[in-house]
């Protein structure tokens, strides 16, 4: 049995480890180059990054772009050091950095995909307020029952691990389910700081326009296989990548099963390629013979 390594990519940054800038400096990476490339590609101005820059903390698009660009930079550092994964997976919007790491898209095209997806789904929030929430400590069945009884339009859009899942839908419904979850004995039931119900049925209508945009981007086959968070298949081909991009935005995902798939494939070392350590935290209740490797100790 050959042990393999994998890179996994977060979607957003809940909290910085505060080792990120030091890590970039130590590896002589000028992160401003990454910001500049994305700025030029999108014709916007992404300012220099610091931990307290409001532009990245308070803006959903900018925070997605920052998470993506840091993930790309970290993947570059690891690969330059000779750490090349056998498999890759991206949590939700982490798909874009996954494709970059697999040499399927450029930094610029990844930024364009994020920018376009964001602007498309923003149309939804012009007419109604939506939201997402994370529940920790109740089973999927318990949360399913709560939803059925209190707000049937809410969807469980991702299962993080044995004890943690994510819901999405109309904001009032999300808040109601979170309240009920706390009453039911959830250890934590918190609203996420996004106003788009990612991975929910409300985004399905954007499949076609996003497909059209994807067709304008130069995408190559992946040099490293990627595990789908949508249906956990392994893919490298162009047609599969295009399909995954749509499913990843508009369909339910399952991170728990995705991690299990990596482990089933004899992945024993997993590198979280991104700022913060959200994916390491989530991995707590995902059993298997693997180690979450800290990139900062490399």
């Amino acid at each position, binding site marked *: 049995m050959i042990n393999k390594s994998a890179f996994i990519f977060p979607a957003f940054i809940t*909290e910085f480890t505060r080792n990120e800038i030091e890590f970039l400096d130590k590896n002589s990476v000028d992160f401003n180059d990454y910001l500049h490339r994305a700025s030029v590609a999108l014709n916007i101005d992404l300012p220099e990054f610091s931990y307290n820059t409001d532009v990245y903390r308070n803006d959903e698009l900018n925070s997605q772009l920052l998470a993506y660009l840091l993930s790309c930079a970290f993947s570059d550092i690891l690969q330059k050091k000779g750490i090349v994964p056998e498999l890759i997976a991206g949590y939700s919007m982490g798909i874009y950095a996954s494709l970059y790491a697999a040499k399927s898209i450029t930094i610029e095209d990844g930024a364009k995909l994020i920018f376009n997806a964001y602007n498309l789904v923003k149309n939804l929030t012009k007419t109604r307020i939506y939201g997402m929430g994370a529940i*920790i*400590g*109740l089973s999927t069945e*318990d949360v399913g029952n709560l939803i059925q009884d209190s707000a049937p339009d809410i969807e469980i859009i991702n299962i993080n*691990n044995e*004890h*943690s899942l994510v819901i999405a839908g109309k904001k009032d419904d999300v808040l109601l389910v979170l309240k009920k979850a*706390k*009453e*039911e*004995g*959830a*250890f*934590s039931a918190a609203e996420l700081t996004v106003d788009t119900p990612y991975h929910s049925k409300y985004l399905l209508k954007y499949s076609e326009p996003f497909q059209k945009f994807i067709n304008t981007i130069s995408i190559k086959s992946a040099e490293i296989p990627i595990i789908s968070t949508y249906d956990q298949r392994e893919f490298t081909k162009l047609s599969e990548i295009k399909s995954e991009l749509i499913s990843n935005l508009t369909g339910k995902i399952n991170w728990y099963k995705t991690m299990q798939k990596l482990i089933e494939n004899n992945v024993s070392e997993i590198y979280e390629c991104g700022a913060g350590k959200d994916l390491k*935290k*989530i991995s*707590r*209740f995902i059993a298997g013979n693997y180690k979450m490797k*800290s990139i900062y100790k490399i």
Partner: protein
Amino acid sequence: MAQITDKTKNEVKEVVLDFFAEECEIEIDEISEDSNIISDLDGDSLMFLELIEIFKKKYNLNIELKTIGKYAVKNPVQTIGELIDMQLLIIEHENDILEIE
């Protein structure tokens, strides 16, 4: 209802400190009973849950997570010392913890 002995208290404290030291990648002597779980140690609900699972196995406890969750929401802990006390209460009372006044 289990009897909490000094041995149990020491064991629970040791497990909690070892757990946080490993999770937070710091030395045990950097953690005290006054350490704030969130602001000092970057702790979260999943860590709390994992500790409960550890003690559930170690002491063969008859507990349902939902019951502990209801107690924890009403009696939130902030420091390592408070967390140790709560774990001891869980070991002592198991699923009857909600009946504590």
